C-alpha cells in the first residue's frame, strides 16, 4: 500500500499541490530583463520646517472636512476635550487605552463631567464590546501613533490598547495626536512600524495585527457621484494636536 502511494507520488502532476503547480508554472516562464528604476524627486514635505509640517497637516485634514484644534499641552488637551464633549452634548463615549489617552485617566474625567466613559477593557468578550461600541457609544476617543503631514493622515497601531472599532463604529471620532509624533511622509511611519530591513527574520511576530492610516471621515460618492461623509464609519473627525 505504502509502495503504491509512493509510486503515485512519483508519477508527479496528479499529486502536485496547487501551490507548487502555480509556482512551477511561473518559474518555467521565459524571463525578461528588469529596467532600472527612474529618479523620482523627493516630496516637498521632506524639506519643511516643523511649523510648515503642522500647517500642511492641518490644511490637508481640513480639506477632508476634518476639524483640527492645536493646544500647548496635555492639560489643555483635556480641557479642549471637555469643551468638545459639552458642545456635542455627548453622554456616552468609548475610549482607547493607548499611551496617549491612558495618562489622561478619562474614566475619572468622565465621572467629574457626568459622561459615561467606557473602554474595551470593561467588556469580557467581543460581542458585548461590539454591542456597546455599535449601539451605545456616541463618540470614539483615541490617541494617534502618528500624524503624517503629507496628507493630513493619522496612523494608528492596533493592539490590545487600541481596538479597531473605537475609531470606526461611533459616528464621531476624536483623536489626540502629540506633535512629537508628526512626520513629513508615510515612509517614516512605515519604517518605525514595520522596521527598515527587508525580510529580517524574527521580526514578524512584532508586527501589529493591523496598522491603519485615517485621512478624514468615512465617505462615498457611489450614488450618482454625490459625495458625502459618514457612509459606514464616522461622519466627522476632530483632531487635537498637542504641543
Amino acid at each position: 500500500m505504502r509502495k503504491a502511494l509512493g509510486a503515485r507520488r512519483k508519477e508527479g502532476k496528479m499529486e502536485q499541490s496547487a501551490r507548487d503547480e502555480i509556482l512551477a508554472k511561473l518559474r518555467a516562464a521565459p524571463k525578461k530583463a528588469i529596467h532600472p528604476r527612474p529618479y523620482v524627486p523627493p516630496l516637498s514635505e521632506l524639506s519643511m520646517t516643523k511649523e510648515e509640517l503642522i500647517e500642511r497637516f492641518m490644511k490637508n485634514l481640513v480639506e477632508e472636512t476634518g476639524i483640527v484644534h492645536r493646544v500647548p499641552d496635555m492639560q489643555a488637551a483635556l480641557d479642549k476635550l471637555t469643551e468638545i464633549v459639552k458642545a456635542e452634548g455627548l453622554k456616552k463615549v468609548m475610549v482607547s487605552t493607548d499611551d496617549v489617552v491612558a495618562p489622561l485617566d478619562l474614566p475619572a474625567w468622565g465621572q467629574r463631567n457626568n459622561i459615561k466613559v467606557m473602554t474595551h477593557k470593561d467588556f469580557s468578550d467581543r460581542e458585548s464590546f461590539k454591542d456597546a461600541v455599535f449601539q451605545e457609544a456616541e463618540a470614539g476617543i483615541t490617541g494617534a501613533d502618528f500624524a503624517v503631514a503629507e496628507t493630513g493622515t493619522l496612523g494608528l497601531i492596533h493592539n490590545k490598547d487600541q481596538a479597531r472599532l473605537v475609531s470606526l463604529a461611533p459616528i464621531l471620532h476624536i483623536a489626540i495626536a502629540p506633535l512629537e509624533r508628526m512626520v513629513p511622509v508615510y515612509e517614516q511611519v512605515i519604517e518605525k512600524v514595520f522596521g527598515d530591513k527587508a525580510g529580517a527574520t524574527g521580526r514578524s511576530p512584532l508586527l501589529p495585527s493591523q496598522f491603519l492610516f485615517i485621512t478624514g471621515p468615512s465617505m462615498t460618492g457611489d450614488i450618482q457621484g454625490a459625495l458625502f461623509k459618514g457612509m459606514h464609519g464616522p461622519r466627522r473627525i476632530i483632531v487635537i494636536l498637542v504641543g
Partner: protein
Amino acid sequence: MEIKTEQFTDLAKKELENDRLRTFLKVWFPVLSMKRDLGIATLPDPAAAQAYGAAIREEAMERLPELLEEFEKNALANGAKVFWARDAKEANDYITNLAKERGIKYVTKGKSMVTEETGLNEVLSQNGVEVWETDLGEFIAQQLHRPPFHIVGPAINVPVEEVRDLFLEKINLQEPTLDPVQLGYAARIFLRDKFHHVQMGITGINIAVAETGTIINVENEGNIRFTKASPPTQVSVMSVEKVVATMKDALHMIRLLCRNCTGQKLTAYVSMDSGPKKSGEIDGPEELFIVIVDNGRTKIYQDPIARDVLRCIRCAACLNSCPVYGKIGGYAYGWAYSGPMGQVLDPVLLGLERTQDLYRATTLCGACKSVCPVGIDHPSMFLYYRAKDVLGEPYFMAKRRPRSEERFFKAFAWAVSRPWLWNLAVRMIRPYINKDAREGVISKMKGPFAGWFRTRDLPVMAWITFHERWEKMKENA
C-alpha cells in the same frame, strides 16, 4: 457572474440608446478625469512617479514566483493561513467550506474584483450562505443583480429614483427621498446591523507585501475595516499578481492608486494586516485566511508580451480617459472588468474567441496608455490580440478568421500588386460601389462588406482616376 463579452456590440447599441445614461456620462465623465489629472499633479514630478510605478510593477512581475513565496513565508510567520487555488472553483469551494464548517449564516463582503471574476457570491448563496456586499455601490449593484458599471463606482450610473425604489422594497427605507445622502444613510443603518453581528468577513486585497507578509486594503467607506474588525473569521482573496516586493514599493503604489482612481491624495482608510489579532485584542479576526487565486494568470504569464497586463492595479484611470467607455459606460463590456482595463484583461482571461469585439472596439487613441500608472501599452496589446486572433493562435483560444476571409486577402494582395489587374477591377467594381453614394460618401453596402460599413464611410470612387488623368495630360502635352 454571467459572461456576456460576446454580446458587446448589441449591449453597446442598447446603452447608446439610453438617453439618461448618456446625459449622466456627459456630465460625470469629464469630472472624473479632471479629478484624476488634478490629483496626479500634486506629486512633484507626475511623469517620473508614474514611470516609477511601472518599474515597481514590472519588477514585481518578473520576480513573481520568488515574491509570492516570500509573501507566503512571512504571512505564515504572522499567523495567517494561506490557501492556493488553481481556479475559481477551488477558491470558491474552499471559502464555502470555511463558512460551512463555522456554521456561518451570512458574510459581509468588501468590494473584491477577483471574487466578481470567480463568481463567489453565487456559490456561497447556493450553499445557503447569505452574502452582503457592503460597499454602497456594490450593494446597490448586487441588489439589482447587475455587473459593476465602473470599477470604482459600481452603481454610479443608477438613477436615484431606482435606488429609492430599491431601498423602499429591500431595506425598509422609511420615507421616500431622492436625496443621495439620505439614501446613503438608510443603507448605513441597514448594513450596520450586518456588521454588528457578522461572524465571517470576506475582502479583496489591493496590495500584498512580500517582505512583511502584509495585506493592504485601500477604501473610503470603512466597510472593509468593519469586515476586518467585527467578525472572528476573516478571509481575504487576492489574485497571484497583487504582490510587490517591499513596504516602500507599496507606499508608492498607494500614492499612485488613490490619485489615479479618485484624484484623492489618500483614501479615507488604508488598513494593513499582518496576521490575525494578537491575544488581548478584543476585535479583529481570530483567524485570517489568505486565498491566492491563479484562475488563468500563470497562463497569461507565459507570454512575455501579454504578461504586462498583470501589472494592472485596477485604478480605473484608463476607464475615465477612454472615449469609448465615455459613450457606452461599463455594462457593454459584459463582465467584471470594463473599459480598456477589461479590454486588455478579458481577452487573455477568457480567450480571444469570446472577446472578439473587446480588442476591436477601440480608437487606438492611446488615452488609456497615457494615464496608466503601471505602463501598460493598451493599444499595442489590442493589435497584438488582433494579430493572434487572425493567425488562430490556439494558446489564447483564438477563433481564426474564416477561410474565405483568408482567401480574399490573399487574392486581394495578389491583385493589388498587379496594376493592370487593379485598374481592370476598379473599372468593373466602380459602378456597383458608387450606386449607393449619397453626398459624395458611401455609407452602406450589401454583401460580405456590410460589416465594414457599419461604422465607417468610404468616399465615392473617382470616375476618372488620377492615372487616367495623368495619361491624358501627357497625351495633350
